């Protein structure tokens, strides 16, 4: 395990690659970016000390290719690899291959990752640690009929999930027996495409629950700490949209029980490095969902509410050092909230958008952090996740943090492709969200109105649009000459 990290290869792209490159710079570690052909001019490539081309645009031929990443590590002389999130971050074969190549993998050991990646074994671990679990199983018989029988055993309504994945990919809700066959096939296709593994898992759907997850951290010296919770109940089709800490629904007693359960699960699993234990909360009860054996998209929420640097701690722990904090050092202060800005058109069924960023200006406001992976003049490609940026706001109270978030979103112009910013604003302005009472089904039940197209342009705004045409016909984009296949 470990050893000092001098040169770190980041096996990822976009905002998370930039986040890790910045941590390297602070720690005096050289950074190595990897990129597909489509990303040769991407911001993460420009920001790193070194860059290695690893293949064609499709992720399977670049960011998901273990041989190409290992080859890039060898060629660049990297002594460690950070997988980021998504792609190969929870792939035990990649972690193992790094170890065999003599490269430190920034994450848990492969056997721990494999155990937690299996929903069955993860639930066994949670059960041993004394945490309550939701009824569910990975059917041994993975045929359509086998999965159908498993759904009948678990009971309706049920969730079909990709056994290998997360993030809502390959996930389907089934409420009636007649929907099962089509849902199983669609879930399997999506799971195969997104994770290279079509194995399905089925679970009883707990409705009206809140999604609350506990950030945990463990080192090689027996220390396991938690960094409190994140509430990710604002979800659209099981994809997180807004995350915050503290959770508006946890009492101090419930928080104590859940953080205790998360630490017990991490200990039972022999966990190392950063991880997240996800739970559903309904009333006073909570249920173990799964462990995400990696850094999460929403980790900045925890960073702002604890004032701790999670990526730095990951690199220290991976190098075999002690965690930089003990449990009493970790305090939850004030409130932090994150909104994910996606290239998607809510008015067209949240269709992912690809195209040129004619104008892209990040807001600069007190208490607001933007983690992003794009720049004005760049192109959003069809090949990868449509996350453009994360807007994270922190303040003394939840109300103030929400006000800051809204202010930042109202001052974040992105033109050339549609984004979900108008949709996000409608959510954060909604009284149920303000009241802190929304559950994971809220957006799917009541979110249709948030997704509607804009009404007519106000006269004074139209005047500015016309001024642009009169005084500056060439500026900020003439006729866009964008070719997605050569971008």
């Amino acid at each position: 395990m470990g050893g000092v990290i001098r040169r770190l290869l980041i096996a990822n792209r976009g905002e998370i690659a930039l986040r890790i490159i910045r941590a390297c710079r602070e720690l005096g570690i050289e950074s190595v970016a990897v990129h597909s052909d489509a990303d040769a001019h991407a911001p993460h490539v420009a920001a790193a000390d070194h860059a290695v081309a690893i293949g064609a645009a499709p992720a399977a031929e670049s960011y998901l290719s273990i041989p190409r990443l290992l080859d890039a590590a060898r060629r660049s002389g990297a002594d460690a690899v950070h997988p980021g999130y998504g792609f190969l971050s929870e792939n035990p074969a990649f972690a193992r291959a790094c170890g065999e190549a003599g490269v430190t993998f920034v994450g848990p050991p492969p056997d721990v990752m494999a155990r937690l990646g299996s929903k069955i074994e993860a639930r066994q671990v949670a059960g041993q640690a004394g945490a309550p679990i939701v009824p569910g199983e990975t059917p041994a018989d993975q045929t359509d009929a086998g999965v159908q029988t498993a759904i009948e055993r678990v009971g309706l309504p049920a969730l079909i999930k990709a056994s290998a994945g997360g993030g809502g990919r390959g996930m389907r809700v089934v409420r009636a027996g007649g929907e099962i066959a089509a849902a199983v096939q669609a879930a399997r296709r999506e799971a195969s495409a997104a994770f290279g593994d079509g194995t399905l898992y089925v679970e009883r759907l707990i409705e009206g629950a809140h999604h609350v997850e506990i950030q945990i951290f463990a080192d090689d010296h027996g220390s396991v700490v938690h960094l409190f919770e994140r509430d990710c109940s604002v979800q659209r089709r099981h994809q997180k949209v807004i995350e915050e800490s503290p959770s508006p629904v946890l009492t101090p007693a419930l928080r104590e029980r859940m953080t205790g359960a998360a630490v017990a699960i991490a200990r039972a699993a022999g966990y190392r490095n950063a991880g997240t234990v996800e739970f559903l909360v309904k009333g006073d009860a909570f249920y173990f969902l799964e462990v995400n054996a990696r850094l999460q998209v929403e980790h900045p929420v925890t960073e702002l509410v604890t004032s701790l640097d999670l990526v730095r701690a990951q690199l220290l722990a991976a190098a075999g050092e002690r965690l930089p904090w003990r449990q009493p050092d970790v305090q939850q202060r004030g409130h932090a909230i994150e909104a994910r800005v996606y290239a998607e058109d809510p008015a067209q069924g949240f269709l992912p958008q690809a195209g040129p960023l004619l104008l892209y200006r990040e807001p600069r406001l007190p208490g607001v952090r933007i983690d992003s992976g794009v720049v004005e003049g760049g192109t959003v490609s069809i090949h990868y996740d449509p996350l453009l940026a994360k807007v994270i706001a922190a303040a003394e109270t939840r109300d103030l943090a929400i006000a800051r978030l809204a202010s930042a979103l109202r001052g974040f112009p992105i033109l050339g492709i549609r984004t979900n910013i108008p949709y996000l604003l409608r959510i954060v302005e909604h009284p149920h969200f303000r009241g802190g009472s929304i559950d994971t089904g809220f957006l799917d039940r009541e979110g249709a109105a948030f997704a509607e197209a804009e009404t007519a342009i106000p006269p004074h705004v139209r005047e500015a649009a016309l001024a642009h045409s009169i005084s500056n016909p060439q500026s900020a984009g003439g006729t866009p000459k964008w070719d997605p296949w050569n971008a």
Partner: protein
Amino acid sequence: MGSVERVGDGVYRVEANGKMELVYVAGPPNDRWVFWNGHVFRGDFGPSTAGRHVPTEPSKQSLTAPMPATVVAIHVRPGDRVTRGQVVMLLEAMKMELPVRAPGDGVVSAVHCAKGDLVQADAVLLELDA
């Protein structure tokens, strides 16, 4: 109506109801993008064509790709009768499946793509006779 002042590349200060507001503008006159206070407008806002918005309704007779995508599955052949809302094709982009639905009842008159094809935005995928 108040004054409009250019304060940066694509950035305008506009006076409205005694308040100054920032408006961001990009794109050519016939397909202009405008951002104001978290709202986004797109279209042709020119005086002679006021109110005309650019993305027009797709033809009822042909189905086009909403964005660059890969054809994952085609569920119909020329001659097949389809009903409104029926999924006739599956596309994939950004790791998401995008079902393509028939805009009305009709008979498939032509299929212009094959499974595995990469299709451009607005490429005609399939034609229907009502």
